[in-house]
C-alpha cells in the first residue's frame, strides 16, 4: 500500500493522453492504472488531464450529477467557510478520478453511514452468536413454563421453581456460547487479541442482559405465595453464579466450570429438601432476607476480583 510520511519525488514523466483515456474507460491494465494513480497524487497537471478524460468518458454524466449534488449540499450548509473553494476542488482535482475507477462499487467506504452501520453491528456481533437459539428458546420456555404452571395448573410451586432454575440460566448461556465445543469460531478467536476474555465477558453480559429481565418479569406475574421471596431475589445469586463460573473457568475451562457451578447449585437446592413433602426445593433460605443477599453480593465481588486477577489465564494457549 501507500508509504506514508515520505514526500513524493518530483515526477520524471507525465501521463500521455492515450493512457489517460484508457484509464478513464476502465480498460487500462492494473499495473498501468496503479502507476497512473500514484503519479496523479503528486502531479496536478496530469490529475487535471485525467479528470478531463474521465469527465468526457462513460462515467461523465454520473460524475456531473454527483458534482451538482455535492455543490447543492455545500451551498445548503449553514455557516460554510469557503463554498467556492470547495466547489472548485470538487470540479477539477483528484476526487472525480477516484470515483470514476469504481462506479459500481457498493463503497461509501468509511462514510459516516457505513461506520454507524458497523457500530450497531458490533453490538449484534457480540450478541448474535452469544444468544444461541437453543438457549434463547430455553429462557423463554422457562419463563412461559412457570407462568403456565402457575395459572394453568394452579400450582403454588411455580415461583419457587422459577427462582431455583433462574440463577443457572445465565451460566448455561455462557457455556452454550463460548469455547471449543460450542463455538465454530473458537480456533480463530484463540488467535486474536480480542477473542478471549473480552469476548467472553461480552457474551456473559448478553446472557445476563436477556435472561434477567425475561425471568424476573415472568416471576413478577406469578401469584405471590406465603414465605416465598420476590421475583427479583434471584438476580444477585444469578450474577454471582455467572461470575463464579467465569472465575472457575480460568482454571478448568468454561464448559466444565459451568457444569460444576450449575451442578453445585442444583445439589444445594434439592439435597436438603429430599425427605420433605411436596416439591423437594430448598430455595427460600438461600435467597430470602438481607443476610443471604448480602452474601451473594459479597460472593459476586470476590468472583469479579478473582476474575480480574486471573484475566491473563484466559488467553493462555491450549495445552496438548
Amino acid at each position, binding site marked *: 500500500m501507500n508509504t506514508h510520511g515520505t514526500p513524493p519525488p518530483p515526477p520524471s514523466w507525465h501521463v500521455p493522453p492515450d493512457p489517460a483515456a484508457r484509464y478513464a474507460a476502465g480498460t487500462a491494465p492494473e499495473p498501468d492504472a496503479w502507476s497512473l494513480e500514484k503519479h496523479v497524487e503528486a502531479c496536478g497537471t496530469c490529475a487535471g488531464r485525467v479528470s478531463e478524460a474521465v469527465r468526457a468518458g462513460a462515467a461523465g454524466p454520473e460524475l456531473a450529477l454527483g458534482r451538482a449534488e455535492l455543490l447543492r449540499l455545500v451551498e445548503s450548509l449553514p455557516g460554510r467557510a469557503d463554498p467556492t473553494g470547495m466547489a472548485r476542488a470538487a470540479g477539477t482535482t483528484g476526487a472525480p478520478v477516484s470515483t470514476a475507477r469504481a462506479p459500481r462499487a457498493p463503497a461509501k467506504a468509511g462514510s459516516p453511514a457505513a461506520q454507524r452501520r458497523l457500530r450497531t453491528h*458490533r453490538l449484534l*456481533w457480540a450478541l*448474535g452468536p452469544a444468544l444461541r437459539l437453543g438457549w434463547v428458546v430455553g429462557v423463554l420456555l422457562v419463563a412461559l413454563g412457570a407462568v403456565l404452571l402457575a395459572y394453568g395448573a394452579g400450582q403454588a410451586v411455580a415461583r419457587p421453581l422459577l427462582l431455583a432454575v433462574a440463577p443457572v440460566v445465565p451460566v448455561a448461556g455462557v457455556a452454550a456460547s463460548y469455547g471449543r465445543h460450542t463455538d*465454530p469460531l473458537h480456533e*480463530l478467536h*484463540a488467535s486474536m*487479541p480480542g477473542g478471549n476474555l473480552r469476548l467472553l465477558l461480552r457474551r456473559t453480559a448478553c446472557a445476563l442482559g436477556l435472561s434477567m429481565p425475561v425471568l424476573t418479569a415472568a416471576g413478577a406475574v406469578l401469584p405471590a405465595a406465603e414465605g416465598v421471596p420476590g421475583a427479583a431475589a434471584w438476580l444477585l445469586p444469578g450474577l454471582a453464579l455467572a461470575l463464579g463460573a467465569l472465575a472457575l473457568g480460568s482454571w478448568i475451562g468454561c464448559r466444565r466450570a459451568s457444569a460444576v457451578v450449575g451442578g453445585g447449585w442444583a445439589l444445594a437446592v434439592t439435597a436438603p429438601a429430599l425427605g420433605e413433602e411436596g416439591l423437594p426445593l430448598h430455595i427460600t433460605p438461600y435467597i430470602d432476607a438481607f443476610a443471604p443477599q448480602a452474601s451473594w453480593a459479597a460472593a459476586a465481588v470476590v468472583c469479579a476480583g478473582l476474575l480480574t486477577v486471573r484475566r491473563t489465564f484466559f*488467553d493462555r494457549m491450549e495445552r*496438548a
Partner: protein
Amino acid sequence: MSSDKGGGVTVSGLTVRHRRTLALDAVDLDFAPGVHGLLGPNGAGKTSLIRVLATVAAPTAGRVSLLGGDISNHRERTEARRRLGYLPQEFGYYPGFTVREFVAYVAWLKEMPAASVPGAVERVVERVGLADRIDAKVKSLSGGMIRRVGIAQALVNDPALLLLDEPTAGLDPEQRFEFRALLRDVGTASTVIVSTHLVEDVATACTEVTLLDAGRVAYRGTPGELSALGDERRPGQEADPLGDNPIERGYTTVLRSHRQLLPEARR
C-alpha cells in the same frame, strides 16, 4: 517496537506432543518475509507448527519468537496477535453473518482502529474477488467462496505474519491460480507461511520450501532446488514411480532419504 512490517519468525527447539505422539521434535526454523511453503505427508507436523505460530496451541518445549516478541509473554503475544492473520484448516463461521459483517467482526477482534474497519473490509473483500457478494450471507456461498472469505478475514488487518493451513483446499484451478498471485503479492512485504499438500502450490507461489516429515525438518531450500533434486535422480523415464514432475520427484526423493537416515522416525 519497529514499524517495520517484517520481523519474521524464529523457532528453536520447538517440541509439540499430543498425548503420546510427538508432533514436532525439537525443530529449529526461521522465516523471513516472503512466501514459505510447508510441505509434508499427513501427520508430518504441519498443522501443529501452524497452530503454535498462530498462538493457539502452546509448545511442549522450545522458544517461539513472532515479529520480535516472545509468545510465552502475555503482553508480547497480544502485540503479535494484532499483526497476525490466520486461516485454520477447519474454518468455522457464523451462518447468519454476511461477508461484510464476518470480516468486520474479525477486524474488530483483531483490535483494528474502528474508523479504518469499513474501508479495510471492502478493500480486502475486493482483493479476494468477492466484492459483488459482500452483502451475501456466508452460508449462501459455495465452498470455494467461503474459503476466500477465510482468506479475506486473515488479510483484513494487513498482517505482518500470515499463516494459512491448507488454503487451496476447495478452490478450483483458476481460483488457485489467482490465489497464488495474491500470496506472492502479500509475500513482498509480509512473512507468509502456507501449509499445503499440493506441490504445485509451492512450485508457483513460494520463495522457500520447508519439508516436514515425522515432526522433523527433512529439507529446506527453494522450489527450484527441490526440483533439481528430482531431475538428477531420474532423468527422462516415463511413468516414474517417484512422481510426474521434477518437484514431485524431488519431494519423494527427499522423503525417502530422510526416512533412511532416521529409521526410528518412520511410522
